[in-house]
């Protein structure tokens, strides 16, 4: 087995190649903008050049003269769409700022007009020719800008329930033997999936089909229906493949209903492919954050006091915050904890979730501070984590369903050869290069949400699975196919998987790393229904206890925990007994503790996510330990990362091959968050400066050397039927801190503001 397809350890499935591999290497995989349309009109967006103010009017003379222009839509003539509520407020949208509603401008890059033409080229030319006259006001760009307001997150954001707190922080910190106080800062970042924000809308009578990359086809379908004021059953969203998302395609953006409305008015399909630059402002982003951390500890390393206060930027109308204190206050044993999150409102587009939304910025702060504490204690940073490891979260004492943090540290440290690290900063060099080793903890909440699936089994063993999940590079096709094959005992080649279509049974948003846990648990449950039907046919006279049901199976080596008790079943005999050739079952699954209205909400495209720190009597997280080697050139200050090692434990691993790839991508994302990525803001105009792939730095191949992913075996029977914790966002948590900790070790300079670029080094 090759490195890219690791040998499965205990409680891991087979590393089979991706279900969609052939489609993806031949160009046959059809992404939204690839779907052919009959006689489409092409739309181009015109976006605002000011951040705050009003549109006084348009000069469209030149634009209208462009050959092939069909329509120019502005707030003066656009259909008045219904309001879009924020997803975190029971709605579907990533922003409540609705373009083309009024003359008001709320942020730069807001859509102010849509030009539609016979060709893409004409639409582009006319969009460039549009003149917009504004009365501009002075915008507030970010922290410290005049005119911003700041208020606690608690009370303004339904999803932010509490500022976790326990014991008496002030007293404990005052009495602490060793103290660390430091402030940290993370920049705005944009997801920049390779696939652009595209939307094609096709009406057939009063039914609408939308081809759009979405992490949540059910949410988009319901959201657009609401905005258009039509029945959700009349809307269908299709995306068999999504070209990367990372959170950017999770909630509805204003463009979709606008394009749908224009297509209806023109009586013709309309296709939009927004530009890369427009993607920076017509969707969400990861907002900049600030943190103050205070840690008090005993000389032996035990934490006695922890305080984490943070500020996040959001837009004027929307109180969005990621609020990562729910994680950072529960990670280590500590009797006295205090926290607070505030939202600072500025004239910006509304931020949203981006891969590990809370953990990337908040764990950067905590895991940097832990390293500073290790230095103050003169203690090995791995040992500091060991001393403070805990089986119960300290805020309310709930037990972790499983926690393999130190197993990750030990296996990671061994692979990295951490013992070769000499503890003193600046003590390891090679020629002109200063070498540093750093580490940090990674963690991500285990989340699940209700889903439904349809499974059809034929007499010849062929299986068809339908579930409206999304393939965003997470391996959804593959793991769903594996779950069904294992549960039904058929070879995986016999399973066809249908996802990415809102006409299929609902699945939750492919976000919060819940996808595999939710969809596979559901598919397993529905496969059980199929087995049950067949079993009953074979043993029609006997009544079955639940335990007996669990032992009916059709053979093949199972890897999901719930399939491991299954026993072969004679398929042909069972079908003969039933007198049919096809068995098809539809079923719904919801995680333990899901609220009463979960299923109703599910069909309305609203997710009732369960898990993480918000479970009743337990807490569920996946863990990892990350080790980084940096090399800093003494003369040029160039920073290189020759090695990244991450060891991760996340319950059942459906497929070690796809899991490794996802975690590897995550580690590279984490490195990028430390050294590359930042959206630069021109604070005078509250405007993004580097809104393109040449200036917004993401890693390229030459930036990445050795990346070693270790899958640590872990079994957790307390989370969901699939036993899966979710890994899509685990890999890039803590990496930024590990990189900065390594830079400190190499140079003796502590960097508390991301990203770290060579000009910030003063060695």
């Amino acid at each position: 087995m090759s490195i890219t397809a690791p040998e499965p350890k205990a409680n891991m499935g087979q590393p089979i190649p991706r279900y969609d591999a052939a489609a993806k290497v031949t160009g046959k995989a059809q992404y939204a903008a690839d779907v052919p349309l009959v006689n489409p009109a092409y739309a181009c967006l015109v976006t605002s050049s000011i951040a705050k103010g009003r549109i006084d009017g348009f000069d469209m003379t030149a634009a209208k003269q462009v050959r092939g222009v069909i329509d120019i839509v502005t707030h003066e003539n656009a259909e008045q769409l219904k309001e879009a509520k924020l997803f975190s407020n029971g709605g579907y949208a990533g922003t409540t700022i609705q373009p083309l509603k009024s003359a008001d401008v709320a942020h730069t890059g807001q859509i102010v007009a849509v030009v539609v033409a016979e060709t893409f080229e004409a639409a582009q030319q006319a969009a460039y020719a549009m003149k917009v006259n504004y009365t501009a006001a002075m915008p507030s760009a970010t922290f410290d800008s005049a005119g911003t307001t700041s208020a606690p997150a608690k009370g303004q954001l339904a999803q932010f329930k509490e500022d976790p707190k326990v014991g008496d922080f002030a007293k404990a910190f005052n009495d602490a033997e060793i103290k660390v106080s430091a402030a940290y800062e993370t920049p705005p970042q944009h997801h920049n999936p390779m696939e652009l924000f595209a939307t094609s809308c096709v009406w057939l009578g009063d039914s609408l089909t939308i081809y759009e990359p979405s992490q949540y086809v059910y949410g988009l379908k319901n959201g657009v229906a609401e905005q258009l004021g039509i029945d959700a059953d009349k809307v269908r969203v299709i995306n068999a493949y999504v070209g990367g998302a990372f959170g950017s395609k999770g909630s509805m953006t204003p463009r979709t209903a606008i394009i749908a409305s224009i297509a209806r008015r023109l009586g013709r399909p309309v296709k939009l492919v927004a530009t890369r630059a427009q993607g920076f402002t017509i969707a969400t982003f990861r907002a900049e954050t600030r943190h103050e951390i205070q840690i008090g500890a005993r000389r032996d390393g035990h934490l006695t006091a922890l305080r984490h206060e943070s500020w996040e930027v959001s837009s004027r109308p929307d109180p969005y915050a990621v609020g990562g204190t729910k994680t950072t206050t529960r990670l280590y044993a500590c009797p006295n904890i205090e926290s607070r999150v505030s939202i600072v409102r500025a004239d910006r587009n509304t931020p949203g979730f981006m891969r590990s939304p809370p953990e990337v910025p908040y764990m950067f702060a905590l895991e940097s501070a832990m390293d500073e504490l290790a230095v103050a204690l003169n203690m090995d940073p791995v040992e500091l984590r060991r001393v403070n490891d805990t089986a119960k979260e300290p805020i309310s004492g709930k037990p972790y369903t499983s926690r393999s943090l130190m197993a990750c540290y030990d296996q990671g440290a061994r692979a990295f050869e951490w013992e070769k690290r000499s503890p003193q900063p600046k003590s390891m060099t090679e020629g002109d290069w200063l070498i540093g080793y750093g580490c940090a903890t990674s963690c991500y909440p285990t989340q699940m949400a209700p889903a439904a699936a349809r499974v059809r089994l034929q007499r010849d063993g062929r299986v068809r699975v339908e579930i409206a999940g999304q393939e965003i590079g997470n391996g959804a096709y593959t793991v769903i196919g594996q779950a069904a094959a294992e549960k039904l005992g058929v070879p995986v080649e016999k399973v066809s998987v249908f996802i990415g279509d809102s006409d299929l049974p609902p699945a939750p948003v492919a976000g919060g790393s819940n996808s595999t846990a939710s969809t596979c648990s559901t598919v397993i449950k529905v496969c059980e229904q199929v087995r049950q039907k067949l079993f009953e046919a074979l043993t029609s006279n006997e009544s079955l206890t639940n335990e007996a049901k669990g032992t009916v199976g059709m053979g093949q080596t199972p890897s999901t925990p719930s399939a491991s008790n299954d026993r072969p079943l004679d398929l042909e005999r069972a079908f003969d007994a039933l007198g049919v050739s096809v068995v098809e079952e539809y079923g719904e699954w919801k995680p333990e503790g899901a609220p009463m209205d979960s299923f109703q909400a599910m069909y309305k495209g609203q997710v009732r996510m369960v898990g993480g720190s918000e479970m009743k009597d337990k807490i569920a997280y996946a863990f990892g330990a990350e080790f980084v080697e940096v090399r800093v050139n003494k003369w040029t200050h160039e920073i290189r990362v020759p090695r990244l090692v991450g060891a991760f434990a996340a319950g059942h691993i459906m497929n070690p091959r796809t899991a490794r790839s996802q975690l590897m991508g995550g580690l590279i994302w984490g490195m990028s968050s430390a050294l590359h990525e930042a959206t630069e803001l021109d604070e005078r105009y509250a405007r993004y400066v580097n809104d393109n792939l040449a200036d917004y730095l993401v890693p390229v191949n030459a930036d990445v050397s050795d990346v070693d992913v270790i899958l640590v075996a872990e079994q957790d029977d307390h989370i969901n039927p699939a036993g899966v914790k979710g890994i899509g966002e685990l890999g890039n948590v803590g990496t930024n801190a590990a990189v900065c900790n390594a830079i400190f070790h190499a140079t003796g300079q502590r960097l508390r503001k991301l990203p770290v670029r060579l000009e910030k080094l003063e060695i």
Partner: protein
Amino acid sequence: MTNQKDFPAGPGFNRRTFIGAAAGTAVAPIVAKAAGASGGPAATSDPSLPVDVSLDINSATRSLRIDARTTLLDALREHTGLTGSKKGCDHGQCGACTVLINGRRVLSCLTLAVVAQGQRIVTIEGLAEDGELHPMQQAFVDQDAFQCGYCTPGQIMSGIACVREGHAGSDDAIREYMSGNICRCAAYPNIVAAVRQAARAMSDEQKG
């Protein structure tokens, strides 16, 4: 991308063939303008008037009537149904649109379709023969060299050129010469493994 000296002499795709191929078509003025010549009378004619273009794509001739400003990428995607080549930026910054022209890797978003006339264009759809994957495609499957798959057609076309250019001799060389293709899923180590595997298979093929 790489400079001229890196490429062996062969069926050229240079500025001269660019202009030579375009001369005599309705779009000559645009090309001349781009090359810096002052606009003659034709330069004022409406550039949005469609022109007839004939392209040799994957060994088939495609005749199109398109806006003269249509990029090769948009010609492929919007006018020939070949949507395997992807648009990730439209600005030559990401590599998702990479195709081969006369064997060399070219960013189709920075290439006007009219200029690609008379050249041999190969896209991702033209690689597999009789349903059998090209060694580079097979290597991408074997090494799990993608996640979302959106950058993959461009990576594969670039990978083939990288091997043929002689830039797949070491992992460092592969990393360097594959750095024009961004993979936001960051499958980079697997892409290196795939190019390495395919380089071996492609040289075996040549020998055998």
